[in-house]
């Protein structure tokens, strides 16, 4: 049998802090095929740390353990750092939640996309620039030439996010982890970006993990949804079945969303049961 694109079994991420051990991820397991998997969950529940651990980008002195962590059959826990680095640059990539932090501050965004592309494909500078321009155009950056000449602090929030997406997609990865990739985008551009991701999954068989707090977006876009709370997966839902959520966190979430159809002040909030975090 062909292995799943990604296998995660009993993943833990811990950070030793002065006040004691912080358990950021506590036993997360799932597999991913060539599909769109959504991860939603409370702020601080371990979504980003799960993504970073899969890529091998856990900040020091974080400790990652897992019964199994495998990409396309490659055991990542045993893989030498060099292999993980080369996988990361090409076959598995992650769009980080804070684009301006993840981009190099002293290099123009154009140079960065060109470099990402040339590290992976043997093409001329001119060809790489053309590919970068086309990619920025695809994510609806108007005037790509002007934007390529800017430094990260000179682009707007939504432009930075799209630069990051362009940079991560230009190498044609097999697995993309996108951490809140559209949170700074207005609705029209967001739909374009989702369309691109959708095509990459449908036509190229890419596996996509979409981390987002936007329930409605995840529900309408993803095939499956994992819900995280306090470092664990508390439930899995199939696409469009948000109304069948069982966990009180997920059920409560829907009620907290402000809606254009209906004006409630104050908004309902969750009463968090300490039992949810057990």
């Amino acid at each position, binding site marked *: 049998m062909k292995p799943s694109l990604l296998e995660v079994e009993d993943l833990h991420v811990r*950070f030793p*802090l002065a*006040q004691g051990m912080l358990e950021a991820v506590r036993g997360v397991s799932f597999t991913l095929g060539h599909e769109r998997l959504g991860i939603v*969950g*409370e*702020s*601080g529940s371990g979504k*980003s*740390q799960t993504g970073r651990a899969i890529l091998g980008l856990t*900040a020091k002195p974080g400790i990652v353990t897992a019964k199994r962590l495998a990409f396309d059959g490659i055991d990542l826990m045993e893989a030498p750092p060099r292999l993980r680095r080369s996988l990361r640059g090409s076959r598995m990539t992650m769009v980080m939640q*804070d684009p*301006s*932090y993840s981009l190099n501050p002293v290099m123009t965004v154009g140079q960065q996309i060109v470099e990402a592309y040339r590290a992976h494909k043997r093409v001329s500078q001119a060809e790489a620039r053309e*590919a970068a321009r086309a*990619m920025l155009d*695809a994510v609806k950056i*108007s005037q790509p030439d*002007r934007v390529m000449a800017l430094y990260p602090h000179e682009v*707007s*929030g*939504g432009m930075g996010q*799209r630069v990051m997406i362009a940079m991560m*997609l230009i190498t044609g990865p097999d697995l993309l982890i996108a*951490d*809140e990739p559209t*949170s*700074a*985008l*207005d*609705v*029209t*551009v*967001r*739909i374009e970006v989702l*369309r*691109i991701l*959708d*095509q*990459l999954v449908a*036509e190229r068989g890419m596996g996509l993990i979409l981390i987002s*707090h936007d*329930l409605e*977006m995840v529900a*309408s*876009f993803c095939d499956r949804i994992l819900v995280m709370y306090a470092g664990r997966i508390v439930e899995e839902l199939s696409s469009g079945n948000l109304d069948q959520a069982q966990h009180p*966190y997920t059920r*409560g*979430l*829907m009620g*907290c*969303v*402000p809606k*254009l*159809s209906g*004006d409630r002040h*104050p*908004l*309902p*909030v*969750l009463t968090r049961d300490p039992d949810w975090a057990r």
Partner: protein
Amino acid sequence: MAGAILEARNLSVRFGVGRLTIAAVEDFSFALQAGESLGLVGESGSGKSTVLRAVTGLNKPAGGTILLDGTPLAMPRGLAFYSAVQMVFQDPYASLHPRHTVDQILAEPLAIHRVADPQPRILAALDEVGLGPSYRFRYPHQLSGGQRQRIAIARALILRPRIVLLDEPTSALDASVQAEILNLLEQLRRDLGLSYMLVSHDLAVVAHLCERLIVMRGGRMVETTTAAALRDGSVTEDYTRAMLAASKGFARAPAGTSLSP
């Protein structure tokens, strides 16, 4: 306009030189009334953050005037300005000092404004944004995206300014925490009469917090409208209509519209 606490008249901000010059904000005016929440919406790159940054003195205007309580503001902005006006930046990472703990980040504005007995204020500020005392000694990089955003909100509110400029303040928060922050903002406005300028791409969030909103495009105002008009769909500009329609969700594309990276 009489009674406005914060006002901009014919504001312009430009960046770059030569062929690459961009008019990020062009001939833009607004007036924020005391106790009002004013929304600022528009596509990515339309100049929303630049307007807020110009108010705080971070972007130097090429033209126009910004007035606080009817008095034109000078560069650089003084201490009095920052005790009246605070801003939550769109990118909390860039706005929080990387080598300062949460405690230092929250203590700094209190120290500058010589607030006696800062400790209880710091704990209360953390509690308001749903973070316990255990977060005090973390550095920004030791927090999740949404926790960082809440620290930025706590820092802006800790001095109880009269005006808060909020640039996508809840974009990294899940719905449950977002609801708590929106309720907090409303409560402060009701109890203390704070005024807000809110940038958000989430039209429902804007309609929830603001009565009135300005739609921007290409650095200019294209429409001033109301939350009520957003809710009943009676917005007049095509562009605003398109934004409303697009906020209905994602519909899978028909096959065949291909993209090759």
